[in-house]
């Protein structure tokens, strides 16, 4: 070892120590190709190389210089952190899924409710409707047409699948009635006189034959000396609406309520 030299050193003469030390140094600094110089050069070269490598290693990556137990500790920490983050991510993913499906369900329910409200509004006469259908004008040039003839037309339209019906400015609903009065007929408490203009939304190919059936509704009108002009239309607009009072006595059966 390097320190070994100390033990073998003889004490140099104190008087000329400094002078001779510098001389020794300068003498050894002079390049000479002997074995000692070459060996020293080789070893110091090795040292310089190792120093630079170690410095660079130390600077470039702090992980590669660490010991096994330190690396294990770091790995443990990283693994633990990863597990925590994974669990957190899973939780958030579940939460997100719940929120997405929740809003989806809500929207679907809202759309279904809106669609149901429209359907039921048309069926109950609460909202205007339009579509293919027929237009029928019943006139009474000579005699009054009795209410049962008109009721016959209404029943025939209903049987033929008319989805929305209007007489004059009145929307016909499930509770509509037609009765005779002195001046003409009364529909749902409103007096009507001829000509009676019917609008019905439904399949014209079904409605037309149903009304014109031999012995049917229009035949009855003609028997009552009236005239009937029946025409199919691509767009029948039923604009009359009916306010419907909420049922006072009937309530939905809870078990069969909408999901």
């Amino acid at each position, binding site marked *: *070892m*390097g*320190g*070994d*030299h*100390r033990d*073998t*050193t*003889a004490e*140099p003469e104190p008087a000329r*120590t*400094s002078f001779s*030390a*510098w001389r*020794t*140094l300068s003498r*050894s*600094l*002079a*390049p*000479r*190709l002997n*074995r*000692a*110089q*070459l*060996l*020293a*050069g*080789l*070893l*110091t*070269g*090795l*040292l*310089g*190389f*190792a*120093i*630079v*490598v*170690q410095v*660079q*290693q*130390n600077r470039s990556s702090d992980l*590669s*210089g660490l*010991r*096994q*137990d*330190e690396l294990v500790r770091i790995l443990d920490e990283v693994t633990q952190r990863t597990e925590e983050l994974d669990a957190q991510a899973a939780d958030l993913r579940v939460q997100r899924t719940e929120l997405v499906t929740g809003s989806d369900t809500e929207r679907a329910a809202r759309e279904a409710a809106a669609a149901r409200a429209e359907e039921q509004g048309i069926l109950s006469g609460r909202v205007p409707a339009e579509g293919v259908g027929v237009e029928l004008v019943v006139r009474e040039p000579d005699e009054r047409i009795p209410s049962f003839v008109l009721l016959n037309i209404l029943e025939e339209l209903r049987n033929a699948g008319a989805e929305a019906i209007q007489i004059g400015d009145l929307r016909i609903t499930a509770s509509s009635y037609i009765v005779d009065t002195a001046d003409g007929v009364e529909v749902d408490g409103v007096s009507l006189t001829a000509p009676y203009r019917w609008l019905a939304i439904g399949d014209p190919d079904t409605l037309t034959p149903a009304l014109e059936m031999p012995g049917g509704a229009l035949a009855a009108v003609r028997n009552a000396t009236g005239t009937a002009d029946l025409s199919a239309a691509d767009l029948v607009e039923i604009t009359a609406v009916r306010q419907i009072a909420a049922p006072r006595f009937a309530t939905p059966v809870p078990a069969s309520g909408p999901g």
Partner: protein
Amino acid sequence: MIAVIGLVLGAILGLILEPTVPQALAPYLPIAVVAALDALFGGLRALLDRTFDDRVFLVSFLSNVVVAALIVFLGDQLGVGTQLSTAVVVVLGIRIFSNAAAIRRHLFKA
């Protein structure tokens, strides 16, 4: 002179090549460097003592490096590698200081 040139040459070589230290040797290289520094200072002191011998320098250099690495390796196996490498660095540091002091006394008589 050749020793100084060798030192510079080795440093330049290390800068140019930029080698990666093998994983197995990574914990021992810094200790080996410190041990080699100790050997270098010991050699310089021996030079000024006029007892420099290239064979002794070679053997002391290599054995310093090997023994230091061996101690650290043993410490790693025993589970006290960190503490033992600190101990080696402290001991080598003290030796470097004493050698440097001897060199200083030779050159400056102080």
